[in-house]
C-alpha cells in the first residue's frame, strides 16, 4: 500500500470513497475556483512556521479564517484575525446550507483545513462529506485525510512546509 495516500491514521478509512490526492498546484486551482472559501486552522500548528504559512495563504486569496481549539490566541498574538469556534461548532454551521457564512455573504463553497487534531478533523470531515454536499473540503495538513474531498499526502515536516510555501507564494 502506498503509505502516502492511505489515511495517516490508517483505520480512519471509512469505505470505498477516498479523498483525491492533491499537489499545491491542484489545491491552488481549487481555491481559485471557489467563490467563498474558508480556512479552518487548528491548534496543532500554534506558533509554528506552518501557521505563518497558512495565514499567508489566507491573506493571498483573502480567505476568512476560523480558529479552533485555542488557536485563536496564537493567531491573534501573531496579529492575525480569526473567528474562534469549536471545531464541531464550525462544522455544524458549515453543514447547514442556509448558514450565512463567516462574512455574512452566504455559505462557503470550499473549506480548507489545517492544524486540527487528526482524528477529530477526520470526524468533522466525515460530517461534511455526508451532510454538506454544497461544500468541497480540502486539507493542507501534512497528513492524508481520506474523508476530505481533496488532501495533501502524508509527508514529513520539511516537504510539507515546501508544499505550503508553494501555495502561499
Amino acid at each position: 500500500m502506498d503509505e502516502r495516500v492511505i489515511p495517516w491514521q490508517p483505520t480512519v478509512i471509512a469505505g470505498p470513497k477516498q479523498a483525491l490526492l492533491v499537489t499545491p498546484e491542484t489545491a491552488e486551482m481549487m481555491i481559485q475556483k471557489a467563490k467563498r472559501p474558508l480556512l479552518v486552522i487548528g491548534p496543532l500548528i500554534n506558533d509554528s512556521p506552518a501557521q505563518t504559512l497558512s495565514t499567508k495563504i489566507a491573506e493571498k486569496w483573502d480567505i476568512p479564517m476560523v480558529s479552533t481549539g485555542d488557536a485563536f490566541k496564537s493567531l491573534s498574538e501573531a496579529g492575525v484575525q480569526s473567528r474562534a469556534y469549536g471545531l464541531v461548532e464550525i462544522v455544524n454551521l458549515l453543514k447547514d446550507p442556509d448558514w450565512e457564512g463567516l462574512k455574512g455573504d452566504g455559505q462557503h463553497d470550499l473549506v480548507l483545513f489545517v492544524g486540527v487534531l487528526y482524528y477529530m478533523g477526520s470526524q468533522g470531515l466525515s460530517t461534511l462529506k455526508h451532510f454538506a454536499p454544497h461544500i468541497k473540503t480540502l486539507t493542507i495538513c501534512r497528513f492524508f485525510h481520506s474523508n476530505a474531498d481533496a488532501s495533501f499526502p502524508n509527508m514529513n515536516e520539511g516537504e510539507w512546509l515546501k508544499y505550503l510555501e508553494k501555495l502561499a507564494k
Partner: protein
Amino acid sequence: MKLLERYEPFYAPFCDMCCLCTYGKCDLTEGKKGACGIDIEAQQARTVLLACCIGSAAHSGHARHLLEYLIDKHGKELPIDLGMNIDIEAPIMRVVLGKHPKNLGDLKDGLNYLEEQMVHLLSACHTGQEGKSVDFESKALHAGLMDNLGKEIGDLAQIVALNMPKGEDAPLVELGMGSVKKEKPIVLCIGHNVAPGAGIIDYMEDQELEDDVEVCGICCAALDITRYNSRAKVVGPMSKQLKFIRSGVADVVVVDEQCVRTDILEEARKNKACVIATTDKICLGLPDMTHADPDIIVRKLVNDEVEGVLIQDPDKVGEVATRVALKISKERKSIKKLPNLEEIQEMSKECTQCGWCIRVCPNSLNMKEAVEGAMESNFTKFQELYENDVCYTCGRCEQECEVDLPLISMLTKVGEHYVKNEKYNVRAGRGPVQDVEIRRVGAPLVLGDIPGVIAFVGCSNYPEGADDVAKMAEEFLERNYIVVTSGCGAMSIGEYRDEEGKTLYERYSGDFDAKGLVNVGSCVSNAHIPGACIKIANIFAKKPLEGNFQEIADYILNRVGACGVAWGAFSQKAAAIATGINRWGIPVVVGPHGTKYRRLFLGRADKTEKWRVNDLRAGKVMEGEPAPEHLLYAAENREEATVAIVKLCIRPTDTTKGRQIKLNNYIDLHKKYFGTIPHDVYKFVRTEKDIPITYKKEVLKILEDVEWEPKAILQEPSLMDFKEEIVSGGK
C-alpha cells in the same frame, strides 16, 4: 419545544458503510440508502442507540448481579437507610418509576422495569425497525435514563448492604503505583464489581492477615473497595492496567467485570501471576471452579495446573486469592519481569524508524522518538510518555512494531526507574449528596452565586495525559464551583500535585459546596450527580418527585447550572452515562475522542428562534438565551474545554448578581486561553446589571458594536407546554 429540536443531533459517521445484516455491507455515502432503506444519519443514530444499550446493560447487569448477591447475603428486607441526613434515597427511581424503594427487595422493581425497557430499546436496532434518527435518539435518551436508574440501584444496594459511606465526608485513601507495598504478597482487583474485593477484605480480616497481604485495585473496583475498607490501595485508572501488569507487582489478579483488558490472562501469565475471573461477564475461557473445594483450587493455581480459574462466589474468591498470593509471592518476586535499561538500549537499536508506532497510536504519540532516545541511553522521551499517563498503554504501538519491540515493557521499566514518588491520594467515594447540603446550596446555585456544579466523570481516553482533568478541576475549584467527580476521573484528579506537593483532595474539602471537591465514588455512583440535581428541584423548588420526570428535567435544564465533563470517555457505558445525563437537561463536554461516538447534541446560538422559552410565570413564550448552548459538546483541547464548560454553566434564571459572577469567570478564562474578551458575551447580557464590574467598559463596547438591546429576565422559563404539541413517538 423539545430537547432534540433545540439541541439537534450532530452526526460524524465513523464508517461510511453499514455491516449489520447480510444484505450488506451497504455504502451509505452521497445520500445513498442501504438495502433496507436506511440512510447514513439514521445509521449513526442506530449505532449510538446500540452503544447506549450496551453501556446501559453493562451497568444494569452489574446492578442485577450485585443486588441478587446482596439480597442473598442480607435478605430483601434490608432497609434502604442512608442515615439522618438523607431522606430522598433514590431520587431517580422515584422520578422515573414513581416508586419509593424501602428495602433491597423493592429495588428489584426498578430492575424489572429497566430490563423490559432494555429489550424493547435493543429491539429497535434491528434491521427494518426504527429508521429515523429522531426516533433512535429519543430511544437513546431513554436508554441513558435506564443507565442512570441501573446505576442508582446498584450503588444504593452496595451502600446499604456493605455499609459504605452514606454521603458523609470520607477519608483520603492511598493512590498510585507507588503506594503499593511491593515486598508484600499482592492481590490486584480490576473491574467494577466490589463483591470479590469485599470478599478478599473479609477473608483477610477473618484470618487477621490485614498486615500480611496488600490489596489494591485498578478502575472502579478499586474505588469501591476503598469505600468498603479504606486500607485498600488504588493503583489508578484504566490507563495503568497494562503497565501495572507488566511491572509484575501483582501476584494474583482478580478480575470482575467491565473495563478489563481482554488479554489480561495472557499478560498476567507472562509474569506467572495467577488470574481469577469472578463473574459470568468475563470468563477468559477459564474453567469454572465455583463449586470446587478451595484447597483444590489453590493447589491447581499454585502448581500451574490451570491457566487460571473462574470462581463465581465472592467469598471463595476472597479465600483463594489471599491464600494463593501468600503462597506464590516469594517465588514470584525473584522472577525477572522487565528488561533492564541496558537491554532496552540494545533492543532499541533494532528500531527501523518506520514510524508506524506513531501512526497507529490513538494520540499520535511519538514512541519512535522515545526509542531513538533510548538507543543513546537517553530515556527522557520515554519518561515524558510515562508521566501523567500521556501514554495510556493501550499497546497498539507494540502490536504494530515491525521488529516486535516490547514497547510497553520498556516504557514501564523506564517509569519504574526514573519516575519516583508515584504516591498520591483520593478521597474515598462518599455516595450521595446529603439533603442538608442541597438545602444549603440550592439557592446560591439556582440564583447563580455559586457559579455551577461541574462533574468530572468517566474514563481515561485522554488526548494529552491525565493531568488535563486535574488542571480543569483546579481551575474551577479556585473559582468557587462545586466540583464533583467519580470513577477514573476521580483518580486522575488525585494523581496531580501542586507546587507544594499537595493533591487537590488535600487542598479542598469534600463538601458539596463552593470549593468542595466531592468524590461520589465509582462509575455507578455517577447516579448521585443527576440525583443531586433532582434533589435541588425537589428540596429547593418543591417540585414533586414521583413520576414527575418532565417537570424535573425541565427545571434542571433551565435552572441548575450543572455541567458534566467526561474528558476521556471511551466506552459504551460513557455513551450511556452522557446520554442519560443529557436526558435530565444537564450538558456534557467530552474530549476530542468523543467525536468517535458519532453523535453530539449541538445548539445553534445564531438562531434566536431555537432559544424561545415558555415563561410559565409570565404565561407566554419569550426570547431566551443560548444557555446552555450545547447539550453534548466535544472540545479539541483542554483550553477550549475549560472555556466551554464555564459558559455551559450559565442559565437563563441566573440573578443579575449570579450572572455577573458567571460572566466574570467566562471572561477571565477566555482571556486566559484565548487572549480576549469573548465575542459572544453580548448574548448573555440581559440588562447592564449582568455585566461584571471589572469588564464593564470592554463589554459595553461590544454591546454597542452589535447594537445590543436589553431583554427581560425570565422568571420561570420552560420548554414545556408550547402550543405545537404533537410530537414524535418513541420512548
